[in-house]
């Protein structure tokens, strides 16, 4: 059991779960009136990007993968969230 | 029951007396494909402007005017003459699946998908458009119904193509003879999954999920067209690389000293 808790994967998981709960709370607190809220959106999207990055890196084991795979997956995360935030702010 | 053509390993008889191309049937069938798809594209886009699709929410007078255009009849005529080539283009997948180490059930599923797909996805919508132009006397209500029927049958006919592509993708992935590249199998699976996303055309009358929408039409079309071209390039290579000794009409092997080709031995 201790090996499970000390496993780096478990630590990643704990981190991911914590930020999930945190982002839900931020959204519920910040968006109760259902108004456009750029802070909430930015934080929530950045947290999602971080989570996607962590899952790809640690669970999918891209951390140990060749450079082309690292570059492609990181490029996807960066490009996607840049576009998402860009479209969000462009339409305000 | 796996019918991998067990190719005789002996090299093909060097004295190929008959010099004609043994794969002539496959090549004739193959080169009908670019012809067919070009006719298909020309008829749908510049001739009749059926594609890109008109809006499902366009006002009735526009629908009536479109359904009366004479070019729809000419498009319908050309397609009626050419649509028989669709089975030929589908049978090109089938012969490659036959060479794979998978059960015949895969190619039979694809065959049945091709039959139903040609009817509901091509012949029926085509005639819906043709009928409106054929008799200008129909009431706008009837013309609108034909218009909806035509577009929905053409764009929303999912199941037959899905079963065909699922069988095709799975066959490529499970095949151990490496007839077609494995990544093409995965590519086919996501092409097939994207096809499922056309389902909202039955609900949305405007916006990105309508039958002329950004997601259901344009995005699916970009994926589909590139996939279709790549598939035929891969099939071209597969036909080209098929060893002579594996052909159904391979020259008789010298070993059994057969007097003449018994009955397409070898497969």
């Amino acid at each position, binding site marked *: 059991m201790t090996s499970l808790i000390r496993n780096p994967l478990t630590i990643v998981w704990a981190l991911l779960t914590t930020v999930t709960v945190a982002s839900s709370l931020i959204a519920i607190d910040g968006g109760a009136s259902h108004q456009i809220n750029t802070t909430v959106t930015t934080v929530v999207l950045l947290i999602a990007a971080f989570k996607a990055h962590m899952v790809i890196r640690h669970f999918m084991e891209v951390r140990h993968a060749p450079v082309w795979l690292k570059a492609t997956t990181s490029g996807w995360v960066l490009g996607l969230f840049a576009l998402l935030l860009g479209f969000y702010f462009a339409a305000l | 029951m796996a019918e991998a053509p067990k190719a005789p390993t002996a090299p093909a008889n060097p004295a190929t007396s008959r010099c004609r191309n043994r794969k002539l049937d496959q090549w*004739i*069938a193959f080169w009908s494909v670019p012809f067919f798809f070009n006719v298909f594209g020309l008829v749908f886009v510049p001739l009749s402007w059926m594609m890109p699709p008109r809006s499902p929410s366009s006002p009735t007078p526009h629908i009536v005017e479109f359904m009366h255009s004479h070019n729809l009849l000419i498009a319908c005529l050309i397609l009626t003459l050419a649509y028989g080539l669709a*089975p030929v283009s589908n049978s090109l997948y089938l012969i490659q699946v*036959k060479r794979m180490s998978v059960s015949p059930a895969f190619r039979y599923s694809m*065959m049945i998908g091709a039959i139903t797909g040609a009817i509901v996805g091509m012949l029926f919508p085509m*005639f819906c458009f043709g009928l409106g132009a054929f008799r200008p006397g129909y009431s706008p209500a009837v013309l609108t119904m034909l218009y909806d029927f035509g577009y929905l049958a053409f764009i929303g006919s999912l199941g037959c193509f899905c079963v065909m592509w699922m069988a095709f993708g799975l066959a490529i992935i499970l095949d151990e003879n490496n007839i077609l590249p494995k990544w093409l199998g995965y590519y086919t699976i996501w092409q097939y999954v994207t096809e499922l996303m056309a389902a909202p055309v039955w609900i949305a009358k405007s916006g990105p999920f309508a039958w002329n929408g950004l997601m259901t039409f344009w995005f699916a079309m970009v994926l589909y067209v590139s996939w279709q071209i790549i598939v035929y390039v891969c099939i071209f290579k597969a036909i080209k690389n098929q060893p002579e000794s594996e052909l159904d009409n391979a020259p008789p092997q010298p070993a059994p000293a057969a007097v*003449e080709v018994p009955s397409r031995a070898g497969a």
Partner: protein
Amino acid sequence: MNTRGQRILLWTAPPAVALFVLAYLVFPVFSPPLSPTLTPDQVAAFFRGNVTGILGVAILCNLIACSLVPLFAVTAVQISRAATSSPVLTYAYVICVGVGTTAFILADYCWGMAAFRPDRDPQLTSLLNDMAWFFFIAPVGTIMVQNLCFALSVYLDDRPDPIFPRWVAHFNVATVALLAPSAFSILYKSGPLAWNGPLSFTLRLTTFAVYIAVMFWALLRAVKQQGDDRVVLA
């Protein structure tokens, strides 16, 4: 594997043809063929006046619509015996048969549907009638490709004792040319190319009848010659 099964299937064709001839002769829509220039009201009146005849034939054809399929299936088997490199022609032939037969069934449905409730809005009766004629006369694309596939398999078979004599292939190519005009029935409402005209209607049906007879004879001969030769399954 002997050829008894193929011979049995082949001999189902003559009774099927007899039933089709019967259906043709008693079908009110064909004697004479309805003109495409009739107004919706005239079409509706015609269907109201001939409910029994039309429904009877529609039901009969619903039952026998696929009864020529065994003949085509035997043809597919014989195509797969030809010395070509792959079964591509066989597959294309089988798919074409499936598509072509379904088109015929759809035509039959539309006529039956029009006669089922003859007091329907004349617009709709007329639409069903038009649709039936479209499906019955126009979709020659598959049978053309089907015959071309057959002809090609005969031409590519350059063994000393081919399965079919060359002229059968020539005949199939000729039927392609003779069937093609009926696709033009989509464009014209009168004249020889309209769906009741001599080129679209009479020529097409005559060609088809002769074609079935010739193919029946040629297949009988081919199956007889096949003897105990094994057939590679497609």
